[in-house]
């Protein structure tokens, strides 16, 4: 007999009442996106892991302030990203490592996804180069929206800005990419 997957709001409610097993299930569901978000912000895997773990712990302890019925993921990502920012700042590191890692991967022999095959290797290099030339805030918003596939609300939470800022920042970043690439990407 296969048990029914728990509804997320049900898990959150159980966790609010102190059910650590329910929270563990929430951690398992969201640890991937939490870690990748922290990695983009912090710029290295060790800090990202620390930030994600600390974020989950803080989120659990703050569940009493979580608004019932609200989406859990953006709230969690905001906490995790704050932790990641603290670690990045404290060590004076810069974000952008995720993009360099992407560069290493893309220029190597790693097998691309079937979807990735649609993008010619030469175009990947140009696009990655253009991305790397963007200011950090533009690179981050592009990475959140297109690499992590975060919604605007989730991106706003992760970057600690308003949703309108995500929109305008994304628009400016895309505009700069188009300028940089200098061809038909209108």
């Amino acid at each position: 007999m296969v048990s029914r997957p728990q509804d997320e709001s049900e898990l959150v409610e159980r966790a609010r009442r102190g059910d650590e097993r329910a929270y563990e299930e929430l951690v398992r569901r969201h640890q991937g996106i939490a870690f990748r978000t922290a990695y983009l912000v912090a710029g290295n895997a060790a800090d990202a892991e620390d930030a994600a773990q600390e974020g989950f712990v803080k989120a659990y302890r703050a569940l009493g302030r979580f608004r019932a019925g609200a989406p859990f993921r953006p709230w969690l990502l905001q906490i995790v990203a704050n932790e990641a920012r603290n670690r990045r700042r404290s060590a004076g590191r810069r974000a952008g490592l995720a993009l360099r890692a992407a560069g290493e991967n893309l220029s190597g022999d790693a097998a691309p996804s079937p979807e990735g095959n649609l993008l010619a290797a030469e175009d990947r290099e140009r696009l990655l180069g253009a991305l790397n030339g963007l200011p950090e805030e533009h690179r981050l918003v592009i990475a959140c929206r297109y690499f992590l596939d975060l919604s605007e609300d989730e991106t706003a939470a992760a970057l600690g800005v308003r949703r309108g800022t995500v929109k305008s920042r994304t628009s400016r970043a895309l505009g700069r990419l188009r300028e940089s690439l200098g061809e038909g990407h209108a």
Partner: protein
Amino acid sequence: MPELEHALRQLGGLVEFPPEPDLAGGVRRRLGEAPPRRWAPRRIAIVALAVLVVAVGAAMVVPSARTAVLEWLGIKGVKVTRVETLPEVALLNDGGLGDRVTLAEARRRAPGLVEPHLKDLGTANEVYFSAAVPGGQATFLWGTKRETRLLMIQSPGEAFAEKMLGPRTDAEVADVDGQPGVWFSGDGHYFVYRDRGGKMREETARLAGNTLLWQHDELTVRLEGELSKNAALEIARSVR
């Protein structure tokens, strides 16, 4: 190349992130531990509480004036770190100030706070409280978050403060009605906290303007804004 946004999604599919760690076990263990203890407020003999970090250009020697300030503060284990550039932080990022609260709520959470009433600006337009800082931290803001005129940050807890100064930031001793203080001016600098375990806990890192940092009874107070030293001292001395 396909349309740009589509191309970016494809590129995203090719990004190789580090292997996803299994966080559940570590989180479960942490949840079994007692939450971090809030530190009871207690009198602190000096204004800067643990570590003052002066970041100077790689080729620069720490100016003697700054060294004198550090010595005057009497901080044990002062560390002078050479960095080429300061980290980039946004001015008053939204996550930094904590929750918007009423003064009553801030005082409920940190009973020792004082309400500043400035001669020209009156009471603060907004009050925020952050529990992320050990002992809590209240921020009184004049103006708006978007157009901030002045910030007064009161920290009743014993936090380990770290101030990062750029090579063109000056620090000098200031006396606030007999209480020790220090005046930071010049280029931007950063204020972050470190907990007793050495971990960065600060969620309020911000690019500060000129800053007066002083001890007011059991509170550590920072005044940040585009102020002259005399104006800042006048405000500081008016705080009762």
